[in-house]
């Protein structure tokens, strides 16, 4: 049972999965409660545009995807802030433009795009030391920003009340968007562009069904995010099936369980 964890590639996969599971499910509570579930998909596809640009330029794709996705996240926040457009509308626009740019960059590259395909579906078993350090760095940043949890939560409940109490909700929104963007980029390497949105949404949605408080929802979401990654990884090894998909199935099982026992 435990022998699988003796392989270095499985240890790296578990560690990366746990870090990404933590990041996605922590930020996921704000995404779910603010009704921004589409944002995860939008930013993952923005990362695709950035990865494609990196491939075209012949540099490490994630180093291009990181600033590219952060810029898109900040642009979405800016459009949401300055116009009356709904968050999902702003996301939809940048989503489409990023994918179009990605397709254009890949076409300009005129070479086989295996790397891009791996990023679409993730490669948790091929996680390397750089990916791990990057995930750990982003997780540390998220931990350092933990004191903002109470302000983000307050603005999630009621922006006016938070603002009236002296919370700078606009600045906090930009910080949150920035952190979600870099969490999405590191998650893309591990779980793939197609499945990142699930990582951001399912654990938090499952936690919302059973939690009485927002703090409880946050803790439960993190627990679901981390546990489902470890369990999904182990099951995928046993059954020899794709890891990313199996992790999502485990998260979906958590959601169904929460649906069954919710008060």
């Amino acid at each position, binding site marked *: 049972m435990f022998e699988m964890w003796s392989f270095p590639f499985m240890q790296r996969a578990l560690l990366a999965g746990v870090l990404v599971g933590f990041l996605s499910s922590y930020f996921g509570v704000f995404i779910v409660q603010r009704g921004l579930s589409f944002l995860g998909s939008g930013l993952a596809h923005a990362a695709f545009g950035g990865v494609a640009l990196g491939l075209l330029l012949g540099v490490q794709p994630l180093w291009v995807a990181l600033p590219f996705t952060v810029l898109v996240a900040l642009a979405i926040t800016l459009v949401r802030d300055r116009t009356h457009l709904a968050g999902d509308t702003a996301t939809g626009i940048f989503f489409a433009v990023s994918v179009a740019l990605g397709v254009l960059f890949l076409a300009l590259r005129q070479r086989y795009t295996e790397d891009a395909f791996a990023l679409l579906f993730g490669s948790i078993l091929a996680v390397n030391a750089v990916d791990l350090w990057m995930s750990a760095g982003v997780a540390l940043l998220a931990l350092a920003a933990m004191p903002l*949890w109470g302000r983000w939560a307050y603005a999630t409940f*009621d922006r006016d009340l938070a603002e009236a109490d*002296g919370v700078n909700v606009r600045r906090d929104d930009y910080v949150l968007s920035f952190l979600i963007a870099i969490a999405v980029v590191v998650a893309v390497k591990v779980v793939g562009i197609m499945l990142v949105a699930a990582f951001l949404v399912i654990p938090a949605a499952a936690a*919302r069904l059973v939690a009485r*408080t927002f703090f409880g929802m946050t803790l439960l979401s993190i627990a679901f995010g981390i546990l489902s990654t470890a369990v999904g990884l182990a099951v995928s090894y046993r059954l020899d099936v794709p890891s990313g998909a199996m992790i999502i199935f485990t998260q979906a099982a958590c959601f169904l369980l929460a649906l069954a026992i919710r008060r």
Partner: protein
Amino acid sequence: MKPPAVEAEGVSVRAGEHFILEDLDFAVPEGALLCIVGPNGAGKTTLLRVFLGLAPLHRGTVRVFGAPPGKTSARRIAYVPQIKTLDRRFPSIAIELVLSGLKGRWPGPVGREERERGLAALRLVAAEHLARKPIASLSGGEMQRVYLARCLVGEPRLILLDEPVTGIDAVGEQDFYACLENYRAETRATLLIVTHDWQVASYHSSHVLVLNRRQIGFGPPAEALTENTLRRAYGHLGHMHDSLRGSGGPADV
């Protein structure tokens, strides 16, 4: 000499080309209870947002305890928004909502001392038994009491309330105003209440502002809340409470 609790000088607020508020001039002394009355769309909520520093001015000056609104300590000002704007899908129990008014952020795990302060505030509004209830399960009246506890827990000097008793039965409304009056009597706090109820404005307030984008009337109820000002604000008076037509009411003026 103490500055007024809130003061507006030539205040105008615009949304694009359209004036939401225009040329407001009034000052409310500390310890007063100001009722703001006017038809829908008169700019009443915007005026509260001006005093909170949330609505930018087109021109004019606003001071809260002698300072610009953003410069006044947020802890000394409490705001009770319209209950219909509340997101009941947010996972929270009542005491957390109360403590958010104390901490200026959403509470995480609640410590013993904080819990005691939250419970004490809920006790003031006879809602201690609601402390652990999810906000999604509270009735309109219960929610309003929890909001009032949230507002009182930080012992504010200025309280802004936006249509606080909408959807509450008559007894609940009386209790609500009794709690507010007690707090005001004990602390000399200043209250600004947006209301559609002329009777409340007439009998509870020390000052009334009749508003319809422009300042139609301001002063003690007997001077500001007259048939003339109400007719100018609302266009017509429709059904007017008999009590307002009686002695001291606007019809006499």
